[in-house]
């Protein structure tokens, strides 16, 4: 289903977006599909049904992610996951999952408009985050594929280690995004990073 009304990200991006500034080191990844999924990890039939739809086995190990061709599943809790993708429209993903989970005890909720992703990448990424994140993000402890919900400065955030550049995806709630972006810009200033101008905030 195509939607004629352009979406706006909390950091000022408007659909259709320009191609992502991949050379950048700090930028928003707006308009991804975010779906919150809850089900009983002991329900193997539900897990199998989900894997059928997503092509990804839900990670059962705390603070890890599982990446498929088109979708990433991040562990949020023992019965809760975030599904993150740029390939599925939220409505179709929710519909497909709900269909697969018919008559099972599960919850599938679209949260795409309620949060956004900020990507931080580059050799100084660890130093930038260490200014406001109490977690040990050293690659020996937090390798690519790890995720953690924690505090970044004074906002809750989900951190995902993407690669060993290192690159991190920082998922924050919509209303906190301007604060987190301002904080990251301020922290990154010491390391010569900045948000590209296409992001208004």
């Amino acid at each position: 289903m195509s939607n004629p009304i352009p979406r706006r990200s909390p950091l000022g991006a408007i659909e259709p977006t320009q191609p992502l500034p991949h050379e950048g080191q700090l930028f928003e990844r707006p308009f991804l599909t975010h779906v919150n999924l809850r089900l009983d990890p002991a329900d193997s039939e539900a897990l199998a049904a989900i894997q059928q739809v997503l092509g990804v086995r839900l990670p059962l190990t705390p603070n890890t992610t599982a990446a498929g061709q088109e979708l990433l599943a991040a562990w949020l809790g023992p019965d809760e996951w975030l599904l993150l993708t740029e390939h599925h429209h939220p409505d179709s993903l929710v519909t497909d999952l709900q269909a697969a989970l018919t008559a099972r005890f599960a919850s599938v909720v679209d949260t795409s408009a309620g949060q956004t992703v900020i990507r931080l990448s580059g050799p100084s990424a660890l130093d930038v985050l260490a200014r406001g994140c109490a977690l040990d993000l050293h690659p020996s402890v937090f390798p690519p594929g790890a995720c953690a919900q924690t505090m970044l400065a004074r906002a809750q955030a989900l951190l995902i280690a993407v690669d060993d550049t290192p690159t991190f995806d920082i998922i924050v709630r919509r209303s906190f995004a301007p604060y987190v972006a301002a904080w990251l810009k301020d922290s990154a200033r010491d390391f010569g990073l900045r948000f590209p101008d296409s992001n208004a905030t």
Partner: protein
Amino acid sequence: MSQPFRLTQGGRIHRDEPLQFTFDGRPIDAFRGDTVASALLANGVTLVGRSFKYHRPRGIVSAGAEDPNAFVQLGRGARTLPNRLATVTPATPGLEVRHVNAWPSLDFDLMSAFGLAAPFIPAGFYYKTLMWPRRFWPLYEHFLRHAAGLGHAPDAPDPDRYDHVHAHCDVLVVGAGAAGLAAARAAAQTGARVIVADEQAKFGGGLLSTSERVDGLPAPQWADAATAQLSSASDVTLLPNTTAFGLYESNLVLLAERLHTDQPDNAGAESGARVWRVLPRQIVLATGAHERPLLFANNDRPGVMLAGAISTYVNRYAVVTGSRAVLFTNNDSAYRTALDLVEAEVPVAAIADVRVDPDGILPAQTRAQGIPIHTGAVVVQAHGRGRLAAAELCSLDGAPLGTVECDLLGVSGGFAPALHLHAQAGAPMTWNPQIAAFAPQPSHDIHPAGAVTGQLDLASALRQGTAAGAAAAAAAGCSNGHTPAAPQAAETPTSDLKPYWLPPGDLARTKPQFVDVHEDVTLDDLRLSLREGFESIEHVKRYTTLGMGPDQGKLANPLATGVIAELLGRDPASVGTPRHRPAYSPVSLGAIAGRHIGELADPVRVTPMQDWHESAGTRFENVGQWRRAWYYPHPGESMHEAVARECLAVRHRVGILDYSTLGKIEVTGPDAGEFLDRVYTNAWKRLRPGRCRYGLMLGKDGMIFDDGVTARLDHQRYLMFTSTANAAPVLAWLEQWLQTEWTDLRVYLTSVSEHWSNIALAGPRSREVLAAAGTDIPLAREDFPFMTFREGTVAGVPARVFRISFSGELSYEINVPADRARHVWEALFDAGRSFGITPYGTETMHVLRAEKGFIIVGQETDGSVTPEDVGLGRLLSRRKDFLGKRSLSRPDSVRPDRKQLVGLLTDDPAQVLPEGGHVVDAPGRRRPLPMRGHVTSSYFSPVLGRSIALAMVAGGRAALGERLYVATLDDDRWLPARSCHPVFYDPQGARQHV
């Protein structure tokens, strides 16, 4: 200046890099590598401050962080820093240094008259004397504040950058002296992640001021080599200029790193600081020891220094701190100072050694130099005004041994381990009689090494450091199987220390003898404290202010333990030491705040319509972290006028409100209805899909916790609205029940507060506006009645539209995904222009709901209010249990005189009652007046053309119509009013059903 006290050679200073700074405006020549203190001493500056209470002249005592006197003001203007220690501050070009505690000037101190007039103000003087008569206290206070200046704060916003950084490591080494460097080397070679912090600009600690050798190299050279080796290791972080100032639970260690970024206008001072929050797996404490001062009369005279500091100034800074010295000791270390002074060609006129028969190598070497050594002897008084001139000696049995001229008196009462961090951690420490001091005991994650253990010699420090570093790395899970060899130094056999606390006999009565030089606490003060019954060392501390200065009693507390023990005739181990608390050294407030200032002080949460509100000239109010539109004044409009216009627009036409901040929780699962039945007071299972219901949530105590509308989305799914402030607490509360007690209920909760924005259309024309904006939802009254919701599109965006009302008017709350909410808002606004649509904010929302008598949780309620109290007893189901139900039949919950919600109408319709105003039966002079209740909400109601108020009044519901009065705070008037039913407008509720 010519630096008359600088030796022509030696030292660890860079003579090829001269520099100049100023002290009280006077130029001071120095070299790179100097501290401010060493440069002042090189220039013969002996007076650096005046004491806190008596304004006695004071000089530099030490060469480190323990100094009680060397507090100075650095820099100027917005960047000035008070209470910095000259002894650890590097001398930098252009640095402005000022004294902190003399008035009006250092050399002519008016306040020393205080000392002359009342030579020794006893401890407790302020409390006992100056508090009476009370009316004079402001006068005293003015005088004392002036007298007790401890530097001044900047008078403008600090332009420097302060920062916090979180760090993790396997081994944190605190202190980079011999033991610390050896430990860091041993830990680093296992591949462990290591952080090394030292308060000085240069690593090496005592190695930099000793003539001993390590592994065949002069000690300073070995320190340089070890530091260079560490800095090239990959997972080792070296932090000079960094003080570990606090150790907390879970072994969190806070470090303050002073940054020197050479700002042009900071007058050479450090600019900015960074607090490191380090969570190490293991800690090596190599914090060294502080030499202990000794008691004698006038032991605070400039020229009296710690013996070890004299050696440090000679060896590290090539500075002699006097021209003729006397030494007073109870251990061997002062003999090394004697030898250092001889080497520097400063005559040592006498050594007084408490011990009868010192037999170590160092005393023998000193004796061989022909220096007169008085054994079994003590210094009992220092002579000289402004500066030391002579020392009076005496034998231990009180026989005079003559007065020896000197301008330098080195004292050593032994060494007390700097166990502050260890003690802050609550780790065990024990009295070590060999050193007459408390020493730390190792724990499973804190490894003391070097002088902090009480072992003072270099060879031991290197051995212990190596062992501690290896053990810490192994305990952190890092080991490569072999323990490195410890660096080697010559063993120096020493003779034992003899504890010495009080001068013999009546000589202990000579005044004044300072136990805490910074706080001007004397031996007499301790005696007075004990005499008045304050015997616990914590009581002594509070009675006398012992150890309460910015030096934290580093020198005073170890001395006080022994002195109190002797005065009480008790074992020092049982006397103990005052509790060590962070911060070990002063930390600037900027460093503590870090970057949590200005726009980053706290998150500011905004809705998708924020830009629109801003361009509409909205005034905002902060609701928790949310920034909410408060009211929308037209140019020239007052708040009152704007709110009145907004209110009437909603009552007569249509208004639009951004209500996106409400909490929203999806409640999903086969037991969702049962769950809602348990947490809400009313019944939910039979609510049909598509319908909404208002619910009250109570705490276990039966008091209102939250309220809001919940809609049944489908058979197994509900959407719950919570109040803005309670969005997170309600979710946590509900999860707590599901996870800890009702684990059999199959219910999942997911917050969708941020996904759905909420736009409220309210007013008689709102149906027309919604239709004009374009929707596929049938809006006719019979298709879409009150308290139902519909799904469809609004302005092309998928929406859930709820026909609920917080204003009492026909109203739609339109939920749309936040990423298209701005579009829908604008579409509704555009569609509403021809209907006179008016944006309204939280103030108007409050007025409208008060006109309807709707409560706001947290305004009408305060955690002590039941549903019956606010007239919502009809929402209490009798057929089922719910959280809080049992509490509603407790005797206190059914008292007839509980405060109940009523309306108040003032006699003067223009009079708006003050919110929070006390409600009483009748005015009166007798105080306190019996209070009937308080005003909870109060507004001018534009539609009624008069003021209205809601109040909680004891027994108020049974006495509606009664005469009451409300007190005003500002002009002590009593405002007459009558109570009434709390619904002021449209009591039948007809308007919301149209």
